[in-house]
């Protein structure tokens, strides 16, 4: 049966996805790749929620995961709109060059 996979397999994968997302966010300088790493982190958290929902027999984890998905979609939309506006002004997507607020 499908139920023979231990919980920690899923938790380890969720943590790995989170770690890869954090790594991408910190190391890459392209704003679009950073947004994609953010989506990876959110998906890692979603996997943890769903795995625990399965092992507790409670669908609340699914509902929370559903909320996280909707939030991630909303945040991706606003974030990409910001990226478009920033690109129009700075003509670059390299995060090191977007430093006019530094001060």
């Amino acid at each position, binding site marked *: 049966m499908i139920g023979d996979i231990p919980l920690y397999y899923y938790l380890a994968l969720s943590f790995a996805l989170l*770690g890869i997302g954090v790594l991408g966010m910190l190391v890459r300088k392209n704003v679009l790749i950073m947004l994609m790493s953010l989506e990876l982190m959110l*998906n890692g958290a979603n996997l943890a929620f769903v795995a625990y*929902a399965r092992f507790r027999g409670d669908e609340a984890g699914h509902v929370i995961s559903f909320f996280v998905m909707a939030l991630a979609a*909303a945040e991706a939309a*606003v974030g990409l709109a910001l990226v478009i506006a920033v690109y129009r002004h700075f003509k670059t997507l390299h995060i090191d060059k977007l430093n006019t607020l530094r001060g």
Partner: protein
Amino acid sequence: MDVVVFVILAGLTLTGALLTILWTNPLRSALSLLVALVGLAGLYVTLLAHFLAAMQLLVYAGAVMVLFVFVIMLFDTTEQEDRPLEIRPIGVVGGLATLMVVGKFTKVVSSVRPGIDTTGEPFGENFGSIEAVADVLFGQFMLPFELLSLLLLVAVVGAVVVARQRFWRESK
């Protein structure tokens, strides 16, 4: 048998995730992320979260990634398309650190309860089906659901306003 399925899906997801942060071309990154998201949908099916797997494909793979690809197509990426990936020290150190932390986490979690019962709490036959999720969503989580619809409205209006050209010219 199911460990094989899990390993295939998890490998697909991890490969997609790693390639997302490794490609220099953002379009290839987006497509790798798409692969990772589809792999995750498969994992949700193995976790009996059928409604959520469908939502993952609809929302993430079908809407968010399409949005990403549209935005990537709007930009001129010729100056970064053919560049090879520059191996920076922080990348190498960060990658090793991530690997070590994930390994340590796996070791700790797997040894906390060595015989962790995979069946856990007993659950009904339609676990993870749309009826069961709707019961919880419109019962226990009714208020967050309404607030979420408000948030989506705000996000739509915000995205449209921020991306307009006239908005920025008027505020100068």
